[in-house]
């Protein structure tokens, strides 16, 4: 290429030195990984991460101010260093995207004892090579941004700063802040107040706020009917299983070649069943199941079959309508449309707050975000327990500053396009 007459390590440096540098960083990471093992994020919790951040920023500034004109620093703040760093980061990201990752809580001895495990590939994001390469990329990104400040400023530079500084802030904030992030779950019974939570290792943690679950509601989609192979439970037709969502009594649908007519619908029913006989009666109480009475016919079938189909509940068994030896009509579990918790949140300062928490609508109280996480699966729509996740991330504002700059930078890039070159 353009430096073909130049020996390696002879100035000015190019891509070759860039790759050697990036590989050296990766190797240093591997050595650290093999000798000290996985990075333990808790060791970097506040104030350690803040100190590292301050030292890192001071160091970058010092290098820029004291050695900014040196050829190596100029090289380090340019494309020749950037591309190899990104290539290596890409390679590690691809490994991260290929190998199933082990959650942070898993004990060390549960990791597969192979080479991948020792290299930290089952927990890539807390492995030394990955983190060191991220910091190396941050060094390049930081120095590149600082170097641009020394040049004559043009309007196009707005886009440059938004993108590069934005990414720098978001990445650094995310990397350092991950050590301070707390995620716990809290299970609350209807009518009860709870302040104890569990972290991913199962340890109990008392919080400075308490949640009272006033009520918990689940809304489901209407029940569906499917045709199944009686033996295996497989939905038919096998190539593209069909289903019919209940849409009122009297309707008719075609399912896997059968004509299914909806005769009767009971939203609250009791289902009694033995080997030969199923009885369904209306029952307005907790634990009632939904049931549909259908009439199934098909050309070639001697006479239509009629009977009840139900997906049951924690109280009642599910019930299928057998059409012949092989085929049945069944009602799968209904899909959940929405679930929400009406809560009252108390804080140590004595403030009280009432709110509705549901998926995609978390509640923010003091430094915590409270998320609707799950409920009691076994009781389904009659669950009286709500499971919340509580997240505290003191660095979120830093990361969001970076993200907002990047969003603006992307808009700038879209409108301004590539730099016009003089040909």
């Amino acid at each position, binding site marked *: *290429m*353009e430096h073909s007459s130049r020996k390696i390590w002879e100035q000015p440096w190019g891509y070759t030195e860039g790759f050697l540098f990036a590989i050296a960083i990766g190797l240093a990471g591997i050595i650290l990984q093999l000798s000290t093992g996985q990075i333990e994020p808790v060791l970097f919790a506040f104030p350690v991460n803040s100190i590292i951040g301050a030292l890192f920023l001071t160091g970058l500034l010092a290098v820029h101010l004291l050695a900014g004109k040196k050829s190596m620093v100029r090289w380090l703040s340019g*494309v020749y260093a*950037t*591309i190899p760093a*990104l*290539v290596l*980061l*890409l390679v590690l*990201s*691809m490994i*991260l*995207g*290929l*190998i*199933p*990752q082990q959650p942070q809580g898993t004990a060390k001895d549960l990791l597969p004892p192979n080479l991948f495990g020792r290299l930290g590939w089952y927990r*890539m*994001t807390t492995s030394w090579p990955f983190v060191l390469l991220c910091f190396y990329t941050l060094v390049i990104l930081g120095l590149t941004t600082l170097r641009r400040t020394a040049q004559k400023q043009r309007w196009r530079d707005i886009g440059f700063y938004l993108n590069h500084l934005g990414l720098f802030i978001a990445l650094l904030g*995310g990397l350092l802040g991950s050590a301070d*992030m707390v*995620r716990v779950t809290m299970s609350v019974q209807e009518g009860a107040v709870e302040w104890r939570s569990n972290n991913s290792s199962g340890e109990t943690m008392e919080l400075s706020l308490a949640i009272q679950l006033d009520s918990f509601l689940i809304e489901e*989609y209407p029940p569906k009917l499917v045709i199944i192979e009686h033996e295996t439970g497989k939905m038919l037709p096998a190539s*593209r*299983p*069909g*289903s019919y*969502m209940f849409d009122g009594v009297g309707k008719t649908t075609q399912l896997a070649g059968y004509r299914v007519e909806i005769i009767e619908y009971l939203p609250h029913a009791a289902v009694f069943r033995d080997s030969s006989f199923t009885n369904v009666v209306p029952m307005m109480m907790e634990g009632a199941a939904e049931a549909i009475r259908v009439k199934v016919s098909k050309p070639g079938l001697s006479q239509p079959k009629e009977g009840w189909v139900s997906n049951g509940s924690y109280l009642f068994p599910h019930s299928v309508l057998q059409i012949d030896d092989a085929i049945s009509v069944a009602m799968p579990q209904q*899909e*959940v*449309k*929405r*679930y929400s918790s009406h809560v009252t949140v108390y804080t140590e300062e004595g403030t009280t707050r009432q709110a509705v928490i*549901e*998926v*995609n*609508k*978390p509640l923010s109280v003091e430094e915590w*975000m409270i*998320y609707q996480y799950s409920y009691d699966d076994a009781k389904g729509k009659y669950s009286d327990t709500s499971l919340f*996740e509580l*997240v505290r*991330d003191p660095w*979120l504002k830093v*990361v969001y500053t970076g*993200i907002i700059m*990047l*969003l603006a*930078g*992307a*808009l700038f*890039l*879209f409108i301004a*396009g*590539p730099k016009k*070159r003089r*040909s």
Partner: protein
Amino acid sequence: MTWDAFFYFAIGAILLWGAGAALALKHYAKRLPAILTLAGLVVFFFFIATLWSSLERPPLRTMGETRLWYSFFLPVAGLLTYLRWNYRWILSFTTILSAVFIFVNILKPDIHNKVLMPALQSPWFAPHVIIYMFSYAILGAATLIAIYYLVRENRISDKSRMMLMTDNLVYAGTACITLGMLMGAIWAKEAWGHYWSWDPKETWAAATWIGYLLYIHYRMKRSSSHRTSMLLLLIAFILLQICWYGVNYLPSAKQSIHTYST
């Protein structure tokens, strides 16, 4: 309108796009090819809109539904490129690629129903997916140009003009995947508690993003080779395909919370 009507709308749209592309190839004035392509887009979008209203949710949940939008946005990207850069063959390319994705949807239809899981019920859902599909289409057009370049390198008269066009497409496409990715991050904070969890889909989105950043930065150097640039675009587009649907077939997929097809 249900999915059953897709076949007729799709064939209608393909015929209109094909006619526009053929006329563009035959040196017709820009207006007629543009009008035909636009007419095809109207037909196709009419189907998307009616499907949307019949499903009572944005048709963006299943893979088939994202392919639907991709097939729509490809001719959009082709038309914009044709009008701005005047390359006559781009409409044929985007029509063919769009037809491929349409035929996948016809031959292997997904199951489309009204169910929208609570995690997807968010104002971020439609913009996040639509902007991604739009950027995939623009970057798809850039990839078609890269293939054209790599195959016919010696017969291209004005290479730097073609590189400039590719740069423009990649900048627009990368800007849009950045927007899509960051909207996804903000949404993830609201829905899952964290803006970035290294879910396999997120990891491959980051890999795709790095891929296009490599192209953009490599092109900064005047000495950069056109061939290498175009090869980088191919690699980045492969990463993009893994992110979009390839990820479902990887060993890491079982951990993903980004699966909504069934």
